[in-house]
């Protein structure tokens, strides 16, 4: 029972962080039609900026600066993609792989073999409740992520910006004919994706994780199956998918003993196994839309 509760909490906490990543990923995709393979590197950039700035600036200011920096980097990438957008969505997507390699190489060079800390105020403190022991950082990650997702959903469904986003994702030309400035919208979506990635990075490298190393960006890869299995381009799908992936990964780690016949490290591949299984059953993803048009 304890393992179950523990797994449930870990899954929720992990899933909520994935949700921040998958949300940004989905948003960038909705705005531009391009799959941003550089999202993991942006996340690594966010974590790296917090790690190098938290000593001179203090944690919260460093986080704000890192979020702004990552948002700016994402906007730069979006500017680059806009140059080639007339060619469709394939060329921009391939371009993101190039951006990913450049960014990753430079960050790996700077980070080297070090493991950097975020300097977060929760440190390695732990709390006990309901018979389980959890890292305080995970509690905050869950709370902050849920709060950010809620704010985002409210903005997405209740504001002009959200309506413009949703309309543009469905039919860019029709939205422009209504007076939407899709270029600005595109920039804002990518900037927001960068900001969310930076926040997610802090939670991914906080205790009990050892800290930021050059491979932290790979963790963000687990959010990719989350976005895809939820139905690429569906915000609700990205959230649901993140929860599913978080739970699957936590369960694979929590019940490692029972799963030992598959060998160790099953938690790392669990997201992808789940993605493949879900997509075999539902190729459009959990909440991906089949055409509902009547002509």
């Amino acid at each position, binding site marked *: 029972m304890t393992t179950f509760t523990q797994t449930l909490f870990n899954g929720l906490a992990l899933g909520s962080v994935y949700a921040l990543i998958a949300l940004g990923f989905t948003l960038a995709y909705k705005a531009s039609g391009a799959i941003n393979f550089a999202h993991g590197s942006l996340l690594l950039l966010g974590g790296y900026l917090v790690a190098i700035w938290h000593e001179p600036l203090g944690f919260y200011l460093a986080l704000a600066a890192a979020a702004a920096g990552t948002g700016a980097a994402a906007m730069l990438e979006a500017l680059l993609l806009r140059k080639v957008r007339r060619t469709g969505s394939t060329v921009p997507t391939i371009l993101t792989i190039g951006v990913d390699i450049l960014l990753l190489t430079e960050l790996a060079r700077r980070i080297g073999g070090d493991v950097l800390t975020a300097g977060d105020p929760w440190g390695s403190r732990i709390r006990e409740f309901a018979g389980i022991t959890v890292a305080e950082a995970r509690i905050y990650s869950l709370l902050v992520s849920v709060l950010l997702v809620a704010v985002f959903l409210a903005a997405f469904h209740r504001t*002009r910006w959200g309506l413009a986003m*949703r309309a543009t994702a469905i039919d860019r030309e029709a939205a422009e004919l*209504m007076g939407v400035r899709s270029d600005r919208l595109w920039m804002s979506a990518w900037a927001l994706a960068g900001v969310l990635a930076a926040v997610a990075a802090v939670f991914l490298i906080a205790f009990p994780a050892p800290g930021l190393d050059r491979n932290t960006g790979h963790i963000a890869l687990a959010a990719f199956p989350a976005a895809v299995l939820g139905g690429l381009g569906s915000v609700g799908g990205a959230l649901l998918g993140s929860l599913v992936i978080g739970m699957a990964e936590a369960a694979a780690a929590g019940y490692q003993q029972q799963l030992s016949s598959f060998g160790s490290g099953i938690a790392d591949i669990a997201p992808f196994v789940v993605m493949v299984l879900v997509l075999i059953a539902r190729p459009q993803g959990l909440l991906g839309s089949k055409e*509902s048009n*009547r002509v």
Partner: protein
Amino acid sequence: MRPPPATAPPDELVVDDLTVVYGRSIQALTSVTLRAPVGGIVALLGANGAGKSTLLRAVSGTLPLHTGSIAGGTIHFGERPLTSLPPADVVAAGVVQVPEGRRVFSELSVEENLRAGLLGTPALRRPAARDAVDRIFGLFPVLAERRRQSAGLLSGGEQQMLALGRALMAGPRMLLLDEPSLGLAPQIVERIAQIVRDIHAQGTGVLLVEQNAALALELSDHAYVLDVGRIRLDGPSDELSCSDDIRRLYLGEQDEEESALAPAALPELARWSG
């Protein structure tokens, strides 16, 4: 060729000597000149591929989305130059297009579609935005019944009404309608025609692009005929609908005897009286 006017007279959409190319070499419009006053309904006729939609794209600023650009000439609305402006600025100038094929936001609700029509105008307070939506629901009661339904599930005629309503949300002074009758049943076409008359009666100018020449000539005061990117002829609609060329080319008319009849009495037009 007339010299381009430095400033257009107020309350008129003026397209002057417009040439549009797609890509490097495909010339879709050649020296097109056209005037559409706010007080009237102007029809633009022509076969498929004549360049009718291209003209609307040029006015609305969506040519870049189709790798097109304006190679020469100007577009003005009143005093304001619209040539090569981005779509948002054209909407802000009061010129709004209802695109061909409705293009409603199918996954959004009917009400959200209407609210999307406000995205090009300065933000309204919530009550004002609600009033604007209610005004459109007053014009199209059938949409009010379906306000929570997703737009993709509406019938073709309802989608056309939604597309019209969405465009009217911005309070345009000039409405560009691209093939509003396309694919609709005759009774629905007559309703759309009545709506266009109502919109016009409320002071909004209409530039109507139609393949359905009978309908377009019935609705409009003045008409232009576009043929392979050039204006072939233009004139008052009632004169054009009596012209032999028009009757032969666009109204499917064979019998020369009937050309003396008034347009409303033409047998083809009776179809639209539903």
